[in-house]
């Protein structure tokens, strides 16, 4: 896998990430639609974290930091969009926006912790 990243003949026949991506998406959807804060945060963390993980695993990303940063940026933008949209509807979107920001903050904390504490050879592949 490492020597010939372009060859599809050699990938592994197993990956732990897909099932968690597929779990994170509905959990975050339910959390956001029904305004259930813990489900929204947890689902978004699971979804975004596992996307970063699978990108790393399949060699679309060299390190974990790029994808995680992108995810954080997308989450912040999405949360901001929710805050803006809140002004245009009678339904309160503020708590949903906070849930999205919360998951962005937790991911950032994870990113910082990873940068500080994880030894180099494990952090990058």
């Amino acid at each position, binding site marked *: *896998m*490492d*020597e*010939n990243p372009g*060859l*599809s*003949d*050699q*990938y*592994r*026949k*197993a*990956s*732990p*990430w*897909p*099932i*968690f*991506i*597929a*779990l994170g*998406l*509905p959990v975050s*959807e*339910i959390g956001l*639609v*029904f305004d*259930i*804060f*813990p*489900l929204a*945060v*947890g*689902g978004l*963390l*699971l979804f975004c*974290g596992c996307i970063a*993980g*699978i990108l790393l*695993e*399949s060699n679309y990303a060299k390190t974990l930091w790029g994808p995680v940063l992108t995810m954080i940026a997308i989450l912040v933008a999405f949360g901001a969009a929710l805050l803006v949209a809140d002004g245009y*509807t*009678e*339904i309160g*979107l503020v708590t949903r926006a906070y849930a999205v920001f919360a998951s962005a903050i937790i991911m950032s904390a994870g990113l910082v912790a990873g940068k500080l504490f994880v030894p180099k050879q494990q952090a990058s*592949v």
Partner: protein
Amino acid sequence: MEINAQIALTVFMGVLLVAVAAWLTRIEDWRSYSSTAGGVVSQGERSEYIEQEKPAGLIRWLTTVDHKDIGILYGIYGLTAFAVGGLMVVLMRVELATPSTTLVGPALYNSLMTSHGITMLFLFGTPIIAAFSNYLIPLIIGADDMAFPRINAIAFWLLPPSALMIWAGFFAGPLGLGFEAPQTAWTLYTPLSTGSAGGSLDPAGGAGIDLMLLGLHLSGVAATMGAINFIATIFTQRDENVTWANLDIFSWTILTQSGLILFAFPLLGSALLMLLADRNFGTSFFLADGGNLLWQHLFWFFGHPEVYILVLPMMGIVSYVLPRFAGRKLFGFKFVVYSTLAIGVLSFGVWAHHMFATGMDPRLRASFMAVSMAIAIPSAVKTFNWITTLWNGRIRLTTPMLFCIGFVSNFIIGGVTGVFLASIPVDLVLHDTYYVVGHFHYIVMGAIAFAGFAGIYYWFPLVTGRMYQATLGKAHFWLSFIGTNITFFAMILLGYGGMPRRYATYLPQFTSLNVIATVGAMILFVGQIIFVWNLVNSWYAGKRVESGDPWDLKRDGVHTVEWQWFDRKIETAITDGGEEEQNAVTDGGEPIDKSENN
């Protein structure tokens, strides 16, 4: 929500996330032995699969990205959904044995009807096709795997949560969650589905509808991911010998189907999100003037291609399997390919024939009638090709062949009744009667499910290495065939009599035909019980297939590459000195002597 529940949920999510993270860091050690097995496989020997490393036991199935494993998962999932949807309709048919409500009340009847439709179309139909295409297409076109194996796995794993969300309303009542199963029918027509009093209060199901919308949306995402994967696989991963001129018919139909999914499902997804927003976020896409017609246009622009999304690959299976037992090649192979493509295009110009009775402009209506008439031709072409393939063939009435012939027979009835419905004057009389129900069940049960059965029986030895019990298979066929025709022909007659669809009760004058339909449904039910028993029992205890050509195809020169792959697999297993399955069992930590020997 109460504070306590919030805290409990937060703790639960936290524990779950930590557990997932801990497990993932452990699992990531797999990386250390990832690149050991196998070498570069050269073009010429592609079909010799090298089994690369997989973890053992349950973890293997949860983490697999192998197209064959995912195909099996799709198959099990699809058949489970088929059983659930089937049991729902058994309840409904029992209720319809009497004119008044006896067994289930109108509300439960409506919920069952809604879930039956959605389960059969989205949770059985689409996945069972994905089961065949995932397992077989890489083998038949000589690809090592799908183009994006991980996306393939994600697409599958989106489906179980989607099913749970669609069925959530049935669990919510007993669990005291305060919402019901949706009663909107699978078409989700507004204003019924928008809920007049805001999302969670409306009588048609409350939050159950929201969950169903989310679940449907997920299944649409899954189907779209799968479609992209198949298009990429068929375009880029073919063996060099597989040109467009000899790409097999099943791959052609899957390619066409994937194209249809690519255009139809994202539109459904958007429409569902619009409806969800109308219900929960104060928008008014479907609440304004004309909103109801807008929903119908959006829904059926997806909904009619969906019919072909389901039927085209099944036609592909029949076009692939039927010639094997007729002992000759498919007659007019290219006619079938071109007519498949024609159906694919034309299916996007017929959607408003579901809406002839909505009072739209007659000019507009006429154009949809024209295209609907035109699309009958390619389907008829295929039917003639199947019949001509049978002509003078050396026909062997094996179970898959019986189901193929049953498919053709039922498809003719379903198709011809459909042509009448395409004509506006006839449709206006028969609209919203049981005639329509009979027509489309001839297609979805009589044709789509039958082709699925044909495929399951035909490739059963390939997947399991064992043969099913032929007598039970034939019993399954005859019960299904007779049951289908009794049930749905009675429905067509009921439609001529003017019995409206979708009701739990009916006028006493329709009793006798309804009883006949219920009896037919019971015959079908018995047939499916036999099917399940045969499948499960033969998978564990069926006789092992020792030849790589269990259907004796070489004699007629209709042997195909997936059986060649199977042959090599058997040979490899023998030279390795044991069944590969035994190794898996040993890896899973179970004693060897417990397995296999029956």
